[in-house]
Every structure is written in C-alpha cells, then in structure tokens.
C-alpha cells in the first residue's frame, strides 16, 4: 500500500531508501554519532542513517549541523534524502546542497502520522513528491 505526499524542493535530485522517522525535532549536532552515523536519541537510537531517508518535523540545535551532515556524507554515512514538515533550516540546506542530498521541506503534515521507520520511501525533490510504501499494513 503506497501513499503520496507533497513537499517543496530545497535540493534537487531523487532517492529511495528505508525511512527513519522522528515525530519531533532533529539536530545533526548531538543526535547522531559522527563516527558511526548512528542515531544517539529516541525513538531511533542505534539506527544507522547511511542509505536511509530521514523524515522529521523540524531541524533544531546548533549551526554545526551542516558540518556534521557534510562529514557523514564524506564517510558515506549520510542519509540519501531528507524530508521535513516545517520549512527547511538554512543551515542544514547548505550542508545538503554541498553534499548533493535531495531535500524536500514543507511536507504535508499527514506524513509524520503515516510514515513509519522501516517503510520504503522515494523522494523526488524536483517533483516535490514523497512516496511512502508501507512495510506492514498499519
């Protein structure tokens, strides 16, 4: 069962991967281990971001976030795409542009209720589309 959601392009490109979903805020500085690319905080503690589609409500925390995202990308540990419900944070957008990570913001608010960690998600930033294919019928 798959559902489509709309969003606004921040960084061009498209990618597909397993979703890692945070209902609230996410800060690249503090919430992910820069060495392993593993999440340090609930509800996805221990999950690796490499190859994943990261979905969360809004960016929070320090302006060091974009440097952490860049460092993860250089090590091949960065997410393949990012979607946020709130408008994109400029600081993070800089990191995503430099690391060429497709990024969609202002996503439909329903997305966070529907998408679960583990679902397969395809993001096409140029189309501003987020397709969620449910892993298990929920």
């Amino acid at each position: 069962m798959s559902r489509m959601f709309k969003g606004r392009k921040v960084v061009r490109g498209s990618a597909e991967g397993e979703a890692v979903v945070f209902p609230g805020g996410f800060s690249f500085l503090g919430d992910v281990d820069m060495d392993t690319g593993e999440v340090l905080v609930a509800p996805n503690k221990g999950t690796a971001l490499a190859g994943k589609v990261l979905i969360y409500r809004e960016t929070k925390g320090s302006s060091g976030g974009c440097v952490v995202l860049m460092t993860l990308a250089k090590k091949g540990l960065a997410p393949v795409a990012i979607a946020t419900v709130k408008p994109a944070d400029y600081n993070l957008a800089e990191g995503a542009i430099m690391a060429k990570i497709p990024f969609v913001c202002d996503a439909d608010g329903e997305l966070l209720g529907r998408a679960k960690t583990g679902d397969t998600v395809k993001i096409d930033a140029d189309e501003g589309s987020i397709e969620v294919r449910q892993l298990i019928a929920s």
Partner: protein
Amino acid sequence: MKLTREERDMLVGAEGDVVAEAMDCLVQFGDAFGAEQLADVEYCHYPAEMAIYAGSVEDAVDYAARGAKVRVDTTTSTLCCDLERPLSTGIPEPLAELQARVEHAHVSMGILDTYTCTPQLLGWTPNFGSIIASVESSAIIYFNSALGARTNRGGLFTRFTAVTGKYPLMGYLLDENRRGTHLFKVTIPAERLQAYDAWCALGFHIGGIVGGEVPVITGVPKPRQDWLIGFGAALATSGSVTLFHIPGVTPEADTVEDAFMGMQPREIHEVGVRELDTVYEKMNTIPRGAQVDFVTLGCPHYSLEQLRYAADMLRGKKVAEGVRFWVCTNRITRRQAEALGYVRDIEGAGALVVADTCPVESHMRQSTCREYGMKTPNVEAMVTDSVKMSRYCGDLIGCKTALVDTEACIRVAISGRWE
C-alpha cells in the same frame, strides 16, 4: 534570481574560479528559498574548520592554497583545541598538529583568527540593520536580537559569502520575517532571574516550544549582556531560534505591538517558576553526593568581567583532586586577563583558562575518543552554569550533567562532589 552585471561576471569566472564556485552555490541556495537578488554583506563570522571533522582541515588548507581571499571583515569561530597551548586540554598530539594547520590558511585568506563563539565581546558589533553572515548559533541570535544586525543561521556557505561579499536577500534579512510569532509572558519573580544559569534555563524552555520561530518575551527584569548571550545560546540549543524580541531591552521592538508588527501572536504561553525548574530537573542527571570530574564555565566564551568574577571566587582556593575545571574564553580576552592577574588566580587554584575551544568542540566527543583509543566516555559527571554545555556534553561526550549557578559550580569544583 536577478543578478547585477558585476555578479554575473563573478558567476562566470571573471574573478577566478574560487569566486565563481562560491557564486554558483549562493545562487543555488537563493533559488532554493525564492530569493530575488543578492545582498551586499559587511561582516562574516566564519566556521573555523575543526580537526575532529574528517577532511575539514585539509579542505581549509586547499581552499586557501587556491588563492581564496576574503572581501569583508571576517572573524573565526571555535576550534577543537587551544592553539596557543595545544596539549593543555589533553588532546591527542596528532589531532592538535592537524588543527594548527588552519591558522596559516586563515591568515593567508585575510581572516582575523579570533577562534571564539563570542566575537561580539571583541568588538565585532555590526550596526543596527546591517547585513552580515554568521555561523555559531549563539552569535547569530545575539547579532540579530541584541544588536538588530541581520543574519540567517550561517553554515559552510559563510565561506562563500566571505570571498564574494554576497548573500541571497532572504530569511531574516527581510523585515517581514523578523516579526514575532509566539508571545511568552514570564511570571517568574525578578529575583529568580538575576543569574546566568537562570537566563539559560529560561531560554532552553522557550526554545523547546518555539522551535525555529520568533519568540517575544515580556515580564523579565533588565538582563546583563552575558545573561542575554546565555539566553540566546539556550534558545538556539533547544530550538533553532535565530531572533528573539524583548520589548524594552532589544532594539528592534519597543513594544509588544511593534514586535508582532500589529498582528496577533500565533500562540501565547505563560512561563513560571515551575517551567524553569523542569529545565534543571531535565539537565540534572548526576546523583546527589556523587563525585564530579569536570566543571565548565565559559559557554559561550567568557567576557573579561566574567573572568574577573571567577578569579575573585577562586583566589586562594584549591580545586579538588581529579576535577578538570575549564574556564573558557577567547585568546585575546585571555591575554587581557593575564595582564590583570586573573589567569594567575584562576590557574593558581588548579583550574585552566582555555581559549579557542571548549569541551563540546574538543577531542572529548565519544566519536573522537573511540577513534583515538581514549577513555570513553572521557568525562563521567560535568557541572556547568550553561544549558548549552550541559545539553551537548550529555549527548556528545556522554557524561552525566548538572546545571547550577556559577558560584555553586565553583563550590563543586573545590569539594569535588555534587551536593
């Protein structure tokens, strides 16, 4: 985006490929957010490349080697070690040597190597309404809120702005985006808001609610400058606040109506003592009576006045065995403090006056400690008067933390125990 003739020439390489590449990224960035044109920028606070970020220092050295030169006054943010006393913080030597390579790169680009998160304390106080580009969330929010200068939350692209003098005209550079969104009515008695840690806790509570929007705060006593710095740092830690208004204190809005530009606040919240105390409960994870092995003052970096205060409190005292006690500031203020005897008093007690860095930016992050085979977590229990420090150390260094006032921090450093 509509570019001027000069900007188009820069984009196509008339002034070299470093400038062209920078313009390409800035135009892409502006298009991503619907900017109509580029703005001229007069000052940059630049992201000093930290050796703990793989490839970051090499990137800085290569960039300078390509002949990059800054076109505007540019100061630098913090590093992962104290370049004037490289091994004093316990950093592995190879990391210190790697980090030292950025200084030559920065100086050759014409950058003023300040290596601090509080350039405003060194006199970089851009005028009201001036357009700048800054990194470091506590400096960004101070420039916007306390001075009325205009910057977004800068990151890597601050480098591109420094070498072109340009930034897309968008976000907080535009009047309509500087309007308040949430009203916070503080009902905390004034005497509970007469200390640095209290303003940090207040900021942390509000930031957690307002996220990346613009809080307007009423009902607070007039803050000292360092309280406002801590308050902003906290807002940008629990949230990603870029600008706040305190009518009667901050310059851009004399009244609540001005702050909301005649519109209604989207949300109104009350903030009482209960909300303030919950921040301390959240940050205080050290069991009562437990040993403490780290105390930090100076997040963001301390002013000369704050160093004087710490020196007065520590003169003739002794820091307990096994406690690392850092008092962080910038390299220029440390020189002043040396001349005035403050460093002698603080270090005579067994504390360390650290410049260029702080625990959060240092080698003590778990990821770096593992990489260099050091004790992990490198700190067991840290006491500090800064909520930004307690939040990031708890996660990045993996230690237990406690947030308390400056005097109590010093008492704990002397006793070695969290009472």
